[in-house]
């Protein structure tokens, strides 16, 4: 059984085809990285998988079930969570409350219970708080538990998003450039964190430009370019793949 697979997945924005006839299969367990030059369509792929975009064409399967037409919150409900390349923290809340929001699916949301603040709501609040404290400690944000989210430095916000995503208890966690903008020490910490998340049984899909991180951490690597599948394999295979080298050199050529 594959955990996620996509068939002929396509997303175009006007004239730009960001994801083009993509076929992928992700097996459960471990860390799969999606790499590719800037504008390859990695974030668009994540937006499609998490239901933020509707595909122009193609299907998406989650645990062999067609989930193409599910909306974002429904996908979260069946175990898919993510972080964002440009952080999307709830800046109007405390750091802890950010993570508590992640517990939403597992808490009492009944309206009447809420209005009357029944004991079950208080229990939910307590449980969310405990889970959130635990997760913030787990991702290394113990010092920020009582801080407002807008006081957190950038690196801490990236971890906060991971904690928040973990609070939904995902089966798959999509991480979009979790190490971007981090210094080497922070990157090492994120590296350890991602490894541990995968070890706990959550499948991780990682988009990241830091090749040292990607090559070290990934069980498999999928390369896409111009929205199309380019190569797939272990770090060793990808490192020596001529198509991949050409794609990245091509990019460097463009940058020059």
């Amino acid at each position, binding site marked *: 059984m594959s955990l996620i697979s996509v068939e002929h997945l396509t997303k175009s924005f006007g004239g730009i085809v960001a994801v083009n006839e993509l076929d992928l299969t992700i097996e459960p367990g471990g860390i799969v990285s999606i790499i590719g030059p800037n504008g390859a369509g990695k974030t668009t792929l994540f937006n499609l998988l998490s239901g933020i975009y509707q595909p122009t064409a193609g299907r998406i399967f989650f645990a062999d079930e067609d989930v193409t037409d599910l909306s974002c919150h429904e996908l979260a409900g069946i175990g898919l969570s993510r972080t964002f390349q440009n952080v999307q923290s709830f800046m109007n809340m405390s750091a802890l409350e950010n993570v508590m929001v992640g517990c939403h699916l597992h808490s009492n949301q009944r309206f009447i219970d*809420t209005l009357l603040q029944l004991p079950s709501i208080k229990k939910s609040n307590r449980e969310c708080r405990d889970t959130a404290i635990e997760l913030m400690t787990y991702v290394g944000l113990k010092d920020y538990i009582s801080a407002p989210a807008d006081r957190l430095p950038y690196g801490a916000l990236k971890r906060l998003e991971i904690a928040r995503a973990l609070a939904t208890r995902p089966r798959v966690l999509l991480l979009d450039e979790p190490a971007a903008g981090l210094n080497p020490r922070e990157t090492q910490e994120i590296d350890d964190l991602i490894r541990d998340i995968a070890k706990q049984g959550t499948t991780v899909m990682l988009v990241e430009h830091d090749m040292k991180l990607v090559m070290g951490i990934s069980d498999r690597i999928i390369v896409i370019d111009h929205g199309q599948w380019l190569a797939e394999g272990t770090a060793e295979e990808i490192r020596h793949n001529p198509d991949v080298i050409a794609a990245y050199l091509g990019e460097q050529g463009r940058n020059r």
Partner: protein
Amino acid sequence: MNWRQPHTGGMVMLLAVMAVLPLFLDNSFQYEIAIKVALNAAVCVGLNLLIGYTGQISLGHAGFFALGAYSSAILTDRYGLPPMAAMLTGALGVGLLSFIIARPILKLKGHYLAMGTLGMGVIISIVLNQEADFTGGPDGMSVAALTIFGWEPVTEFQWYWIAVGFLALCVWLSLNLINSPVGRALRAVHGSEIAARTMGIDTTHYKVLVFVVSAVMACLAGSLFAHYNGYITPSKADFFYSIELVTMVVLGGMASTFGAVIGAVVLTVVPQVLTVFENYEMMVFGGVLMGMIIFMHKGLLPTLSEFIGKRFHEPDKR
């Protein structure tokens, strides 16, 4: 009860102020102001759930207030319903209406949502003005006295308790709502709608929910106002009243239930006491709104409590 929780403490303080205030009110004019403050504040508490917490503007809530007022007036007058039954019918009707409007209108964002809700308010106002057979048109109509299970409040003092009782109820419900998973979902919608959705929050559902709650609170306040005032005109559905309400919410503090109450107190009392403002009321409200947004966009109460918090609670800067 946990006294250290700001919610409990604030609620106790509010009840204490409500209980003590009559000692300082010594004529019917002052009671009248207090009653109007309480009803405005109740509307603001509901509106703040929508604007302050969920981040969705409405420039049409005066419409719901007026619908409440008119359903009480019309249902008691023309259909002979007892006032409480009329009030509940009105609330149900407005609940349903707001539920139907909410889905399409809350798809809009930012300026478009402001324009959409403004249009909604204007339509309600036009209907109330035009359907003169039912509403008495621009001249308005008189409203039967309120009876609650046979008891009829007559004195200002009794009305005071009805109004502040209703306000206390709204504040309590609002605090309960905010301090819950649903409340965090609402605030998450404000923070980042996309992120909220990826956390499993059905953002459309919650936006509709809070829109309906705020509409029903405004509607009930309108019903009470109609009975208290004994007379109602379509001016209560005016765009200007909607702006007043939004200004109260912004002044007191977005995303602060007690802030909304304070905003309503200040902006209801000040124009009444300083009658010099009468001709400039619109300008004053406009000025307050602009000033707050530019200099103190969190509003009075959050800014103050942050200031006090910084001075007294965090002497050790980490």
